[in-house]
């Protein structure tokens, strides 16, 4: 294994590991809103959510 071989191997592996780590970190740490969350955050959705909770506690 020559020095050139070491350099190419380490750079290549580091590049793909680094890129995958960066991407997964961004994916896992960035909050995404689900369609259900969107429904809940709308005024009509909030009203329905309150009604649902009231019904649930009274029941």
């Amino acid at each position: 294994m020559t020095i050139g071989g070491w350099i190419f191997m380490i750079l290549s592996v580091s590049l793909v590991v680094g890129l995958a780590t960066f991407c997964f970190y961004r994916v896992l740490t960035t909050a995404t809103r689900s369609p259900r969350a969107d429904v809940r955050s709308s005024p009509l959705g909030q009203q329905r959510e309150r009604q649902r909770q009231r019904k649930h506690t009274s029941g």
Partner: protein
Amino acid sequence: MVEQQERWGSRIGMILAVAGSAVGLGNFLRFPGQAAQNGGGAFMIPYICALLLLGIPICWAEWTMGRYGGRKGFRSAPAIMGVVGRGVVARYLGVLGLLIPLVIYMYYVLIESWCLRYCFAYLFGGLDLGTDPTRYVEESGKFFTAVTGADADGVTLAQGGLHPSVIFWAIVFALNFWFLYRGLAKGIETVCMWAMPAMALCAVIVLARVLTLGTPDPTYPERNVLSGLGFMWNPDFSKLGDFKAWLAAAGQVFFSLSVGFGVIINYASYLTKKDDVVLSGLTASSTNELFEVAFGGLITIPAAFVFLGASASVGSPFGLGFHTLPVVFEYMGGIGRLIGAIWFLMLFLAAITSSLSMLQPVLAFLMEALGISRGRAVSLLGAITLLGSLWVIYFSKGLVALDTMDFWVGTTLIFVFATVQIICFGWVFGVEKGLAEAHLGAQLHIPSLFRFIIKYVSPLYLLIVFVGFCLQTLPGYLKELETNDVARWTLILIGIILLMLIGMTRRGEQRWREMGLDLDGRTPPRD
């Protein structure tokens, strides 16, 4: 039209499903061979160029087109291409996005079953290369021929379907359709959520064993792990002056990422405009590269080199994976059987996550075009792929039927479809509009340089690679068509499947028009 309300269960599940589609046997078997033959470490220069100029731009284009088509209510490649390419020509060219996964599945499921059979052979016996090391290679070759039936046509079906290879094929075939029937989130996504981490774990175990092999045979001191890694990674810059190395790198990136397959376009159609496609696409691509470079680049060639030397370390992917590596595992002794089982389990997982992704686009099309339920579409798709796969099993001599399908559909048509896609995205849909669409909900900004790359560089790069590929390989395959009846009839079979899909697209077109859907992408999505 049966409304397809399916959605992905989670974002990470969807990313792993796309990555699972891309990670296949080529990552572990094809990439190391290509690198070792085309400059070793220096191969990474054309490889990274192709990744940046070809792979990732087309990948982003596919994700964006898929989601755009999905926002208009379509799930299948012909309908989505019709919307993005604004008309009937793009729509019928989109049929390639069905033909490619459908035909590839017909032979890929067979290769997948070989992986499972090898895994079982290592776990429960059945793969015995004897005690004489000088006969390992010959015995390994015999086992491979027995598994594939490559010595004569119909040999695996001659025992009334009780040949072990046929039994494994039937199990794997049924397993694929069971997961497909369960649906997008419960089936494909669930499988990928389990299979991808399991695959990574298997790869780490095998990698750890390979890197700790040292110098197993003191009579050959030059055959050690460092020399094996050197054989794979020592740069030979003289190869960069050879067009073949650039061609090989572009081809490897291109096939490895599963672009031009018709899969990404379908998977992305289940997203909404609030869902990110830029970061998701890059994450799926980077996962594929992780498996290819970090695992494929460090395991296969060094392992083969340590026990068998340089001459046995390069060859066809099939030869390396199913013929050479079993010899390597035999040399490892007792633990070799366990490592062999883990290795073939890993290949099986890589294969099943890919084969599932080939079925879903066609399934979505059958439901969308014919207006039938998922259950009926699964049955119809099962019948079509069963016939095609039986064709490949029967005409097993020299693996001619498999090779013909792989060359004409699994290689050549992928180039054609990717070219159609990137031209539709960059020129018909418009690169400005395309990138604006890609940035809806995006968590990562595509650098503005990619406007130029997507519009000019990628199509030109693709065209040069395609012409080079045709000049290099087409004459041999054309000659085979003249001399080999099986190759000719296999091509006719592909033609019949294409006509059937065109007929179904025509039926779908009529249905979509009757329903008042915007087939030609005249108006923006209403969401």
